[in-house]
């Protein structure tokens, strides 16, 4: 239906031109057809197809030398694609193969190819639809493609081919050893890569939020993203093949557009108080999974601090000049936390979603020798939120040093405090004494570690003395 609208729009534009031209007394002939891009489905059979080029992900650390055209190990014809996957620590194979001339792929239902490898392997990602120009609007990815040492045909179904009328990204892959002991130092071969109309891609079963029905308690002004977007088809082999698909394949709906709206990129904006259900369809099939948004309306601002600047070393507060800039998204390995800055009635606050552990890492350490407390305001939208806050002094070497359980070692010390007994829907203020192990070592305060929650807001984080 999207496509139709688009054509109608173009038609209307032309029609309005036509009105101008109407003084010439000319109308449209019945067979006015709009130009279409060529529907060539070939990607790489025995050579690069028309307009195709190789674009390695060099900026991301991919080895541009990993790709070559192979003439010995071929499935059919006289050439195949060859990728030499580096061993661990030596980069990875990552590239997209795009055309300079756009293709109309709407007549196909799958990208197919033959693949094998010098050893059995699980290829991290293979797909199509990488396009810098459109922000990968119609990207499709098959994760964990299992290849063996003999040639086998693989099928990556197209979630909704009617969207693919002007495509450039015909094939992409990423594979590398992501840890010591992961497969690497082997060779991958691909041949007869093409878009096909198989006619056997059937029984679509799209999903958002991994097919689960989630509930999010939030507030006006916050933004959320539709995640876990997949399309699953049953192939003629009987396999249910799931691919990860870009949001633009879906049409999203909010049950109450006074509460929340969703754009075609799957970005949800909460714009009012109330409840809205986010759902989606893909090519006229309802997706499983959804999100219920409960918006409590505008978020009230945290209490405005009253201490003079001179009494404060601030980490995060609109009321004070920062003592240091900080990294609020340190990306600890294994962290599931999403941190965003959002607005509470014009006041910037930190939003933590799905926190297991994260931290606020100070760019330069804070000398807290003259300070006695850490202040923080915490807001919870649901019951039983508990966050452990660890105030870390990193010592003279200015480096965070922890054992495998996260406890300070070497010259580091910390003090741990649990933020709990929060009143749902209100800001709770804490003044945490700089006590315990940091009582006598607080001149190199370097980080605040946040454990658990999992969902909460923070504001006005500062060290102070009365």
């Amino acid at each position: 239906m999207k496509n139709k609208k688009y054509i109608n729009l173009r038609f209307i534009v032309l029609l309005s031109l036509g009105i101008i031209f109407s003084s010439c007394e000319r109308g449209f002939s019945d067979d006015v057809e709009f130009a279409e891009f060529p529907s060539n489905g070939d990607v790489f059979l025995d050579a690069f197809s028309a307009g195709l080029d190789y674009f390695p992900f060099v900026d991301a650390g991919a080895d541009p030398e990993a790709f070559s055209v192979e003439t010995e190990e071929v499935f059919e014809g006289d050439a195949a694609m060859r990728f030499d996957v580096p061993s661990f620590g030596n980069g990875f194979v990552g590239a997209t193969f795009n055309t300079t001339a756009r293709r109309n792929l709407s007549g196909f239902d799958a990208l197919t190819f033959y693949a094998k490898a010098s050893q059995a392997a699980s290829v991290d990602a293979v797909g199509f639809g990488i396009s810098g120009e459109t922000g990968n609007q119609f990207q499709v990815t098959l994760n964990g493609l299992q290849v063996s040492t003999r040639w086998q045909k693989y099928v990556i179904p197209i979630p909704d081919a009617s969207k693919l009328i002007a495509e450039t990204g015909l094939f992409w892959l990423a594979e590398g050893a992501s840890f010591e002991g992961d497969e690497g130092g082997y060779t991958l071969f691909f041949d007869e890569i093409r878009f096909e109309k198989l006619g056997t891609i059937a029984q679509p079963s799209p999903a958002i939020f991994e097919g689960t029905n989630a509930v999010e308690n939030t507030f006006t002004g916050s933004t959320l993203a539709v995640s876990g977007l997949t399309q699953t088809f049953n192939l003629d082999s009987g396999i249910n093949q799931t691919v990860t698909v870009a949001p633009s394949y879906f049409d999203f709906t909010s049950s109450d557009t006074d509460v929340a709206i969703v754009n075609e990129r799957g970005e949800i904006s909460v714009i009012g108080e109330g409840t809205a259900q986010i759902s989606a369809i893909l090519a006229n099939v309802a997706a499983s999974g959804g999100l219920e948004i409960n918006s409590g309306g505008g978020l009230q601002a945290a209490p405005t601090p009253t201490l003079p600047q001179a009494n404060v070393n601030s980490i995060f507060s609109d009321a004070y000049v920062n003592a240091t800039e900080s990294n609020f998204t340190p990306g600890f390995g294994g962290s599931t936390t999403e941190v965003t800055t959002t607005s509470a009635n014009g006041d910037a606050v930190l939003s933590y979603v799905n926190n297991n552990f994260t931290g606020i890492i100070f760019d330069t350490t804070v000398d807290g020798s003259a300070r006695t407390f850490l202040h923080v305001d915490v807001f919870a939208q649901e019951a039983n939120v508990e966050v452990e806050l660890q105030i870390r002094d990193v010592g003279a070497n200015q480096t965070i040093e922890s054992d495998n359980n996260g406890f300070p070692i070497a010259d580091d010390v910390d003090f741990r405090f649990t933020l709990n007994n929060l009143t749902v829907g209100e800001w709770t203020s804490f003044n945490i004494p700089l006590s315990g192990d940091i009582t006598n070592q607080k001149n190199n305060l370097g980080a605040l570690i946040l454990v658990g929650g999992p969902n909460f807001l923070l504001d006005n984080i500062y060290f102070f003395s009365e």
Partner: protein
Amino acid sequence: MKLKNKIYKILGTFVLVIFMGACDTEDEQRVVNFTQLVVADEFSTDGAPNNNIWGFDIGTGENGWGNNELQYYTDRTSNVKVENGVLVITAQRENFEGSAFTSARLLTKDRFEQRYGRFEARIRLPFGQGMWPAFWMLGADIDENPWPAAGEIDIMEYRGQNPTVLIGSVHGPGYSGGNAISKEYVLENDRFDTGFHVFGIEWGPEAVNFYVDDVLYNQITREDVTGEWVFDKPFFMLMNLAVGGTFVGSPNEETIFPQSMLVDYVRVYENTNEN
């Protein structure tokens, strides 16, 4: 009846090819035209299937109807009904009388039995591991002359995990079960679970011709069977949706329930000269 003509044309071509390739069996190569409609169920009345044509097998038979099938057959509306112009046979995942699944099996035994003829049905099949729909026939003397001596003609069998593959077979004494005379047909660029397809046989004194839509894909003659030819007597029709069993394997966690086999029509023709 454009379709019918097309089948006959193809049938004609097929027979011609056989004729040229095997001149010594000239007298057996005949096109059997069955044009006289004898019985038809168009499933145009909502509710239970027409009692004058269809009866039911109920329960699990002996050892899952001889195949370790997992379903309990019922005649409940939730397993079998006529609705919107089609017969709906539905497999459900539910605990019922000690079985983990329920479904239905219809048969024309003691209601409609015929020797020779053209038997066809237009069906949309379910999909997924463990789904085993069938449109088939058994010798009407099966109570006195137990299987496989009674004979069996499988007009359509299909495994849900192979949604493009149709299997047509005959079973008889010395060629039953895994040794049946059988052929698979792979549908090109299409599947059996996304639309209706016509599954049929033309059965005469010398041969059974198997077709799907307008494609004749097999002919089984007296010479092809490795035992006694038991197809010169009346047979009755069966339609069912089995779940699991030796032939298809058990459903897995990805198999969708409930799922239905939809039958648009069943039609049987005869040729007054042959029948």
